[in-house]
């Protein structure tokens, strides 16, 4: 990592792969690491929302125990391992599962290049889905005049749910079912997006790490190849953005790395 911030004096520290990471009391391992310029792969974490700990892509070892770094409180003298081959392999497998469970046809997906799942996969050198894809066949919801939902790409991170309820105050999205049948639903009696109050400027529109929630009719306006993660790996994009130097197109900067 190149752009390490100068470390404020007097803060407690923990060790991340041998580096001293200062933290404010109350911060998680993830928050402190990112702030110090160290990227830990993550998908359901978003710095504006309360951590949720569901994707487990951010798994690290703390004093030898496997935990989600986004939900683990930083504490003095923790010994955190992140960039080990064991943890990389674990993350890789988790990401491959996500590819298996959804329809992620990157070459024709509008989100390609702005997709965090794809970018994290590249970061982790995931070159194939490895497992047999399930190919879900859930119908799209195109009822809303300006927004399209492609449920087949959802990785169940619940960021849209959190954004819609905490920021937009609308509760447009929810999860239903459990286990393998768990899926995103639209919170309306009809089940249709058109019957919610979702608007294109809502926070919920900009947090999806994959390509479920799309603005209609602007597909491929930015050429693939010129998109955020086409230019730099997600580790660099994330750290640069948190340090106030966003990489990529302005319209892709609404949410975490988008």
């Amino acid at each position, binding site marked *: 990592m190149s752009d390490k911030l100068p470390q404020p004096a007097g803060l407690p520290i923990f060790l991340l792969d041998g580096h001293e990471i200062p933290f404010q009391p109350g911060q998680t391992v993830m928050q402190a690491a990112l702030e110090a310029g160290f990227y830990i792969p993550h998908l359901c974490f978003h710095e504006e929302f309360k951590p949720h700990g569901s994707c487990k892509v951010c798994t690290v070892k703390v004093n030898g125990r496997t935990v989600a770094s986004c939900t683990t409180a930083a504490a003095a003298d923790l010994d955190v391992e992140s960039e080990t081959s064991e943890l990389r392999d674990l993350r890789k497998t988790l990401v491959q599962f996500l590819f298996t469970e959804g329809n992620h046809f990157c070459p024709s997906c*509008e989100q390609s290049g702005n997709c965090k799942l794809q970018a994290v996969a590249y970061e982790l050198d995931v070159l194939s889905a490895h497992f047999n894809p399930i190919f879900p066949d859930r119908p*799209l919801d195109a009822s809303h005049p300006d927004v399209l939902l492609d449920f087949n790409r959802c990785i169940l991170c619940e960021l849209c749910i959190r954004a819609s309820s905490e920021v937009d105050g609308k509760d447009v999205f929810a999860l239903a079912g459990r286990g393998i049948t768990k899926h995103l639903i639209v919170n309306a009696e009809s089940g249709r997006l058109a019957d919610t109050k979702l608007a294109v400027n809502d926070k919920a529109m900009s947090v999806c790490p994959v390509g479920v929630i799309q603005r209609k009719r602007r*597909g491929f306006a930015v050429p693939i190849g010129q998109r955020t993660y086409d230019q730099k790996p997600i580790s660099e994009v994330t750290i640069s953005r948190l340090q106030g130097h966003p990489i990529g197109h302005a319209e892709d900067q609404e949410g975490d790395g988008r």
Partner: protein
Amino acid sequence: MAFPLEKAEDPTKLRRVAIDPVSRVEGHGKVTILLDDAGKIHQVRLHIVEFRGFERFILGRPYWEVPVMVQRLCGICPVSHHLAASKALDLVVGAKRVTHTAELVRRLMHYGQILQSHALHFYHLASPDLLFGFGSAVATRNVVGVLAAFPELARQGVLLRKYGQEIIRLTAGKRVHGTGSVPGGVNKSLTAAERDELLAPLPDVKQWLRSGLAALTGLYGQNREQYDSFGTVPSSLLSLVGRQGQLDLYDGVLRARDQYGKIIFDGLDPQQYRSQLKENVRSWSYMKFPFIGSLGPEAGWYKVGPLARIQNCDVIDTPLAEEARQGLLATSPTRQLIHAPLHYHWARLIEMVHAAEVIENLLHDQDLLGDQLMASGPRAIAGVGIIEAPRGTLIHHYEVDEQDLVTMCNLIVSTTHNNQAMNEAIRQVARQYLDGQELTEGLLNHIEVAIRAYDPCLSCATHALGKMPLQVEFVDPAGKVVQRLVRDGENLAAVSA
């Protein structure tokens, strides 16, 4: 029966030969030949299994994904699908005319594609047959053999392809699965630096094409009889022509001529293609047989592709290509239309010359660097986009509902248009070369040479390194496979059935 050798009188008494290579994405071809004990041929069929399910991927998808998605239809000319879909969807988003810059960028992309695809087809896939002979030793009858015996020609083929691919990369954004063309226009134009990068190699490109053309006319000079007669069956022709009747591979109106050159229809708006083109189904083939409605399903078949195009148009509006076209037309002293499949290769080279000239003109147009990229207008529910893809006319037809999802999709690819033409060509070749003969790899290759003249995308026509797996089955009158031959690389080996 209307098509001799399409159906044997009593197929149960005949042996069967099936040329059945492994399947590829676009669809795969299989040739079956029914023989009696004396080796007399009674039936020859090219079965093409189209990669159908594709419509299923597109139905229910948002329209803006379509131009990107359809590129998976073809590994050799994805750009043609990209552009045909964009053209159809231009109409859906109300862009009856795209901006001048968008049209220039798309044309550049298309002619770059023509150049790279034709280069692959001619230099890589077809030249081994032409240079060494159709029945020559299979060990050298491949691109590696060409590289050894004709290194300069092989090198030029590679460089021509590279140049076309570079054009695609700069206009579409990527070499494969680009996203440059979008419904209503393009998402990028060229920078001055990119334009200059493409201008630099043009003098060489033209020189290489001159040598290619000279090499081919030289081969023709040595073996006129074979080139004129190999698999030759007259038919009607179909293609787009420009609005002034000139050759135009990107846009225009549909024109069809009968086998003697008389116009059947002309000036047909692509949106109305269904008023003249009908589709027929036959029990033995998955692929449809399109035909010109006014002539009926038996007489209405036609050829598409380079040889159809350069004879269907009135003129090529770039000088070097028109001169080359006149050279080919002059081989028919009576000025009858040329129907010989092998002349597809000559026509292909003429189109490559034309592509280079068009590319040069486009690169000198300042608007290629413009920033007016998108047009729009009132929405429509349907659109048809037709383009002359490297192998022939390509039709994309969509309907899109008010929620922006595709509800209908009809694609007619060039392979389908040429279905009957390829079947007729291989029947003719079977009559000319295979009848009563002991079948060898070299003789079976004659069948593939005829298919390859039309279509390199069928995997049975694609023997990139002479290593195409090939199966030949001999079936007894009861339908049981009595012997199976497998061609793997250089040998035809018997495998017990």
